[in-house]
């Protein structure tokens, strides 16, 4: 990495990050996110009735379902907007590598999501005030939740590289995120294992191992496993490589 690489990536990052705050979409998403995450916690998670100073089953449990919809809403403009405006052509004729642009933009979206997640701090205060929670699962829960959001964002980045329509990007990304979530959902995996011949069980378990869900729940239980962190990092890397291929195909 040369200094100019970092400077280019930073320039892209800065523009992208600031542009989120110029659009009402971001504020709408953050508000919906906060309402949804708190609503799920108190109404469906029955946080107050659970009599348990833990956030695993009441708060973090619902995050994947929120991210499936909201992460694509944040990320759908990443490349689709560049294609639609034609600024993609401008960007690709400037002296920077596509990777600098891909990383700069992704980090901007990731930071936006970090802000959203940080705004849920009130639930931590609440749980600490009501009881004395074990900080371990809360920390790993936040890490897992953030990695889940980044995984969904990276998938959205890949989808947005291929289309100029934000709507198409959104729908495709939501579908992919649902798929990556459900193939590891215990109820679904068990029923598939029961229906298929026993010889295929290994395959089904392997596919479910590739899902976001599998790795997410391990971490929210408070077990900080390097393997699960590496899993999400590799999902992000693969999705960004697919983004790169998509952008290259637009220039062929």
């Amino acid at each position, binding site marked *: 990495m040369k200094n100019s690489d970092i*400077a280019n990536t930073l320039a892209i990052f800065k*523009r992208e990050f600031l542009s989120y705050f110029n659009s009402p979409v971001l504020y709408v998403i953050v508000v919906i996110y906060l309402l949804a995450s708190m609503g799920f916690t108190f109404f469906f998670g029955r946080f107050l009735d659970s009599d348990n100073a833990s956030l695993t089953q009441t708060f973090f449990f619902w995050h994947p379902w929120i991210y499936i919809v909201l992460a694509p809403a944040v990320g759908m403009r990443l490349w689709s907007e560049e294609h639609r*405006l034609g*600024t993609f*052509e401008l960007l690709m004729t400037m002296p920077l590598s596509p990777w600098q642009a891909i990383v700069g933009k992704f980090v901007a979206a990731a930071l936006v999501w970090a802000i959203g997640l940080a705004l849920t701090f009130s639930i931590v205060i609440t749980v600490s005030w009501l009881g004395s929670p074990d900080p371990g699962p809360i920390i790993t829960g936040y890490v897992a939740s953030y990695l889940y959001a980044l995984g969904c964002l990276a998938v959205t980045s890949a989808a947005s590289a291929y289309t100029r329509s934000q709507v198409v990007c959104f729908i495709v990304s939501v579908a992919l995120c649902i798929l990556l979530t459900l193939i590891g959902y215990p109820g679904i995996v068990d029923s598939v294992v029961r229906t298929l011949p026993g010889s295929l069980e290994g395959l089904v378990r392997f596919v479910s191992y590739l899902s976001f869900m599998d790795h997410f729940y391990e971490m929210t239980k408070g077990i900080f496993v390097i393997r699960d962190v590496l899993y999400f990092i590799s999902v992000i890397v693969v999705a960004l490589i697919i983004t790169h291929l998509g952008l290259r195909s637009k220039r062929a």
Partner: protein
Amino acid sequence: MIQVQNLRKEFGAKVAVDNVSFTVEKGEVLGFLGPNGAGKSTSMRMVTGYFRPTSGSIKIGGIDMLESPEQAKKSIGYLPENAPLYSDMTVASFLGFCAEVRGITGAAKAKAVDRVLDLCFLHRVRNQSVDTLSKGYRHRTCFAQSIIHDPDVLILDEPTDGLDPNQKHEVRQLIKNMGKSKAIIFSTHILEEVDAACSRAMIIDRGKVVADGTPESLRKLVPGCASLDEVFRSITRSDLEK
């Protein structure tokens, strides 16, 4: 400054640009002429490094575009067709962003932005959102972006498209003045612009170069044709005659 050799671009089975070669030196303004769909934009997109050619070579100031694209792109300024801009930015912040990506920061950035705001008469709208600009201002903002780093090579795809007669005149004057110290390629449909701004012109039809020379020599190309307009019509084919 610009050396293009045997450039060819295929989109599937369709050949968009076929064996195009040319060089442009500093102090030259090359006009790209040709009917719609002749391959002008595709050629320019290859020279600027946006499209990868199927075959052929492109050198900008001696640097190979295909081998070291980031290095070669440093000395190019480019105005794409339709003048794309980030609609959520102001004119000044957009130009500032373009300067930063080109490695111009701090005080130098403020100076560079001021310089192009002056050159393109944009001071009045500097803090206006790009969204709310009229077409002429949008075009000039994108043009300003292309000269923010004072490049040696300038590639302009229909720089006068959509401008009113006064603005057209200004842009032509700007191109002519900058042409004294830079290598410039610009494409146009308007033949009078060739006389107004170019030192050389090339006519492209269906991906091939059909004429190349000074505006003066092009006029004499076809016996019996008095104007560039007639020459253009006699050597390029219209859509009617496939």
